[in-house]
């Protein structure tokens, strides 16, 4: 437990390396995500951002390095959760408090919007087979509580009128918002958004940035996002981490990044001097 993780860091990635065969997707990546911040992870295509995300959320095991999640209840190491015998798996990472959305939306398309949110709250429901079959009062109480919470979240992401539609029928922008609401229903400490603005029009992007702020300000969740929309990134994030070719090349405030020579070089290339 005595890891040298900074006091205010909720998530600490330390010397993360991930190899796929001979390809090194991430090489010695280290960064901290401050509790209660909105942090962005940017970089050109193929920089290894999504690989970092998959390592953080437990979908990949790291080849080397550690990822620590620190909550008031205690500290967990992601790699340890994954390598537990028999019971280990990425679902434990979600239970530890890391929620995520996906670059290509992954909703339960043939289920209703509400049911999508109910599935996310399965841990707060009465999962005993018999109390469910006999519909005990405890079962119905918890079911109602999770329904109420689902309606609450639908209101927050402005999807109330779609509550009983199939998730697959919704427009792209609405599906994105639903996915965020679903991730939030798991009561996370940190939510990882993988390109939340991809495929959204400018108005939807504005609404999204408001929503992300709201998540942090009103619901006390730390936000970590990957995004290519620089307008959005510069507007909402307090801390930006820039990756290129599998390593972190710079990190800092939006102003710092905007004027950073290495970042500009990574995105635009350098002039050839002869």
């Amino acid at each position, binding site marked *: 437990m005595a890891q040298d993780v900074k006091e205010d860091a909720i998530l600490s990635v330390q010397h993360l390396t991930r190899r796929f065969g001979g390809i090194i997707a991430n090489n010695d990546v280290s960064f901290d995500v401050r509790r209660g911040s909105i942090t962005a992870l940017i970089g050109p295509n193929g920089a290894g951002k999504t690989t970092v995300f998959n390592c953080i959320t437990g979908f990949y095991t790291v080849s080397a390095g550690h990822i620590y999640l620190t909550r008031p209840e205690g500290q967990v190491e992601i790699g340890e959760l994954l390598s537990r015998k028999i019971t280990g798996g990425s679902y434990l990472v979600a239970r530890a408090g890391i929620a995520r959305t996906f670059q290509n939306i992954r909703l339960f398309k043939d*289920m209703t919007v509400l049911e999508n949110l109910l599935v996310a709250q399965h841990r707060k429901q009465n999962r005993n087979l018999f109390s*469910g*079959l006999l519909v005990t009062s405890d079962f119905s109480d918890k079911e*109602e509580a999770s329904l109420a919470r689902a309606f609450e979240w639908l209101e927050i992401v402005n999807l109330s009128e779609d509550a009983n539609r199939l998730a697959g029928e919704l427009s792209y922008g609405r599906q994105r918002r639903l996915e965020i609401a679903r991730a939030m229903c798991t009561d996370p400490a940190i939510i990882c958004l993988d390109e939340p603005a991809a495929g959204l029009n400018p108005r939807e992007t504005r609404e999204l940035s408001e929503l992300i702020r709201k998540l942090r300000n009103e619901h006390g969740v730390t936000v970590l996002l990957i995004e290519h929309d620089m307008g959005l990134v510069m507007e909402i994030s307090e801390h930006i981490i820039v990756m290129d070719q599998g390593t972190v090349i710079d990190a800092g405030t939006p102003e710092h990044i905007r004027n950073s020579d290495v970042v500009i070089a990574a995105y635009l290339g350098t002039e050839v001097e002869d």
Partner: protein
Amino acid sequence: MSTTQTSTIDFGHSLRDAVVAGILTMLVFSPITNFVLKQYSFTLDWFRSPFFLNGVAIGLIVAFVRFFVSVGAQTQTGQNFIQNFIKTEHGVEVEDEYADGGKRLRRILLWGGGLMAVFLALGLSGIIYRGAGIALVLVVLFVMIAMGVRIPKRRGKKHPWKGALPVLFLVGLLLPLLFFYFGWFGKSWINNLTLAMVYVLLGLGLNIVVGLAGLLDLGFVAFYAVGAYFLALGAEYLGIGFWSALFLAPLLAALCGGLLGFPVLKMHGDYLAIVTLGFGEIIRLVLVNWINFTGGPNGASVPAPTIFNLEFVRRARGDAVPFHDFFGLPYNSDYRYLFVYLLLFVISMIALRFFTQLRVMPIGRSWEALREDEIACRSLGINHVTVKLSAFMLGAMIGGLAGVFFATAQGFISPQSFNFFESVLILSIVVLGGMGSSIGVIIAAFTLTLLPEFLREFAGYRVLLFGLLMILMMIWRPNGLLRPKRSVFRKSEVA
């Protein structure tokens, strides 16, 4: 076909359709049905009897039917029928059962009840052929369908179905007794109904695995065999009776389900199907080849069921008292079948209510979520291992239960009852009925098990008809008889 209000029927078009269909049918079927193999040579027999083997007759029949279908499809009623019953578009319906205050359900109940009464009257008066048996089957079918309806809980609202269910349950339970008492129907019909209900149970079990959890299982018959053989062999070697088997066999089947489930957790779709297929065959081959233990192809006999230690046999062994002696009745082997039927009826009703309830429970939702997207499930903290295993185990449990009833009803089992075709039949019940739909399973199970009984004359063509039915279903209703429906939740009903 321009849309004028007065829909004119194009008879010429229909006639053309009919001729084309007739010729095509003759071309396809004549080479099959008109050649007669005599020792080492073929002879051509154009007017072969029975008449439906006759190539000319087949062509004429099809042309005749095609003509009327073609004309019928051009009328307004025909158009409506096509629109209502042929649903090729993929999709799930979201339905609010309370939207019209339950009017629709009440109407179905009234109509269904009325229809049942008419059938009963017709059947008992002997107007329709094999009347009493058919009437009883239809009543039981209706009762079961009514039992399979979802009753979502709503605050401050009474579901119209709720009051009707106990009444229907009693009807389903007492009517066969009444029929039996008056001697309106005998052993064969009780047996048919029992078999149909065994398949309803099997369909429900497999529907958990395939329909809800989305895991294609081609070896489901293995669990059915485990249940049946547990009773037969348990009685032979361990002295286990019907009632203990009724409780223990599902547990053993669930254990087998877990054992199968564990190694295949990482597999999907086709790969999973092949492994489960292999598992089913392993069980069957063990049953066939372990002759010393299972009796091999000769099968094993199953003891008669008991009720409060009263055996359903003519002469009990030792100092046990047979059922009929205790009540001072003359011996009748039908008591045994009636008893099995009644118990099976009660248990399948319970299984039906449980199945419908499962869908609105966290575990049922997790299964469906897993079917939709496993990765998303993991990202929400759902342990996909336990969710998959629970689906396998609960499905296997119901399969094992069905096996016990099958064995008891038959009195004798052999590995032939548990071959691959049986797995296919159960899977077709699920697919025909509609994935995840309990009512669909009931209708499909009754159709596929009882239709062959009605069509005894066509027994040799059973598989052909079966294939035909499948093809038509895939063309007209690829999602099964009933589309999966999802419940509506209203905000006003949540505190």
